């Protein structure tokens, strides 16, 4: 939607600049969507543009999220609220499994790639679940394995 609006309709950005913002937002830590908005805002109006773009995306939805969490907290003990909270919490559990699936799916295919997925993702799971290793060293080892164990690409 943003691409159509910024590149085709308003012509504020060239498709090359849009693609650069998109690619770099994928390698920026944190929420990719926010990095993308910051990159687009910075290309349009510099640092102030980045701030305005990120605020425009986050402030209204953060207020809505706060209202929901406040309502959820107030509703503890109320049967109607507990029914709503219980089912949305279950939906979140489904969402987490879907996220795991979505992260892993592009990285499978081919013996070496499958082995990388099993060893890196499975190793991270075991290290955390079984041996209580904290996330930072696990992420660090994953990064090093990613750098030195070449991805052969999909066959």
């Amino acid at each position, binding site marked *: 939607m943003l691409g159509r609006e910024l590149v085709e309709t308003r012509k504020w950005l060239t498709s090359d600049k849009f693609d650069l913002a998109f690619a770099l937002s994928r390698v920026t830590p944190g929420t990719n969507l926010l990095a993308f908005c910051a990159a687009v805002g910075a290309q349009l109006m510099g640092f102030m543009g980045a701030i305005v773009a990120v605020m425009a995306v986050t402030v209204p939805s953060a207020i809505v999220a706060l209202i*929901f969490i406040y309502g959820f907290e107030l509703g503890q003990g109320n049967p109607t609220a507990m029914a709503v909270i*219980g089912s949305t919490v279950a*939906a979140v559990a489904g969402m987490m499994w879907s996220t795991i699936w979505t992260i892993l799916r592009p990285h499978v295919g081919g013996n070496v790639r499958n082995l990388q997925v099993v060893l890196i*993702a499975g190793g991270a*799971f075991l290290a955390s*679940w079984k041996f209580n290793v904290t*996330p930072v060293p696990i992420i660090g080892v994953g990064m090093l394995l*990613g750098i030195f164990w070449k*991805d052969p690409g999909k066959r």
Partner: protein
Amino acid sequence: MSVFTVYFLLLKASLTSFSGLGSLPMVREDFVVTAHALTDHQLTTAVAAGRTGPGPYGLYLVCVGFLAAGIPGAIAGFLALITPAFLVIPLMWWLGKRADNPRVRGAIRGILLAAAGLLLSAAMPLTQDALTGPFALAVIVVSFYLLTFTKIDSAWLMAGAAAAGLLTLLF
């Protein structure tokens, strides 16, 4: 828990993740396991509140901040959410021509795979907490299917789950 601690813990989680809920394992480790500032149920509720409205996945950090330290905590969570986004500006300057470098791509792939394993580890206790009976199991399975194999917006899914929860009171 002090507001500064909330900010730095959430910033650490945000800085070491590259996908929507990728920060969740570290948030759980710091807030639930180590500091006991939240329970698993509160953490899952925070994620639910963050996804019930529109906006990016990371919004749950605002809710975690709120549960840990009230409104100042929510502001700290909000700042921790948006701070990493601005890293893209020096990245545009420095990494603009290196985004396709195989080693950079390999590093990101390794981080993503490790993050998936960590998320699996975090998902287990949170799923156990959510799994209160056959109805909850059905909601988990249906939401997994809809989010994975259709293009449904997660806000609609949350609304549907809430409505289904209300319906259970009638039967």
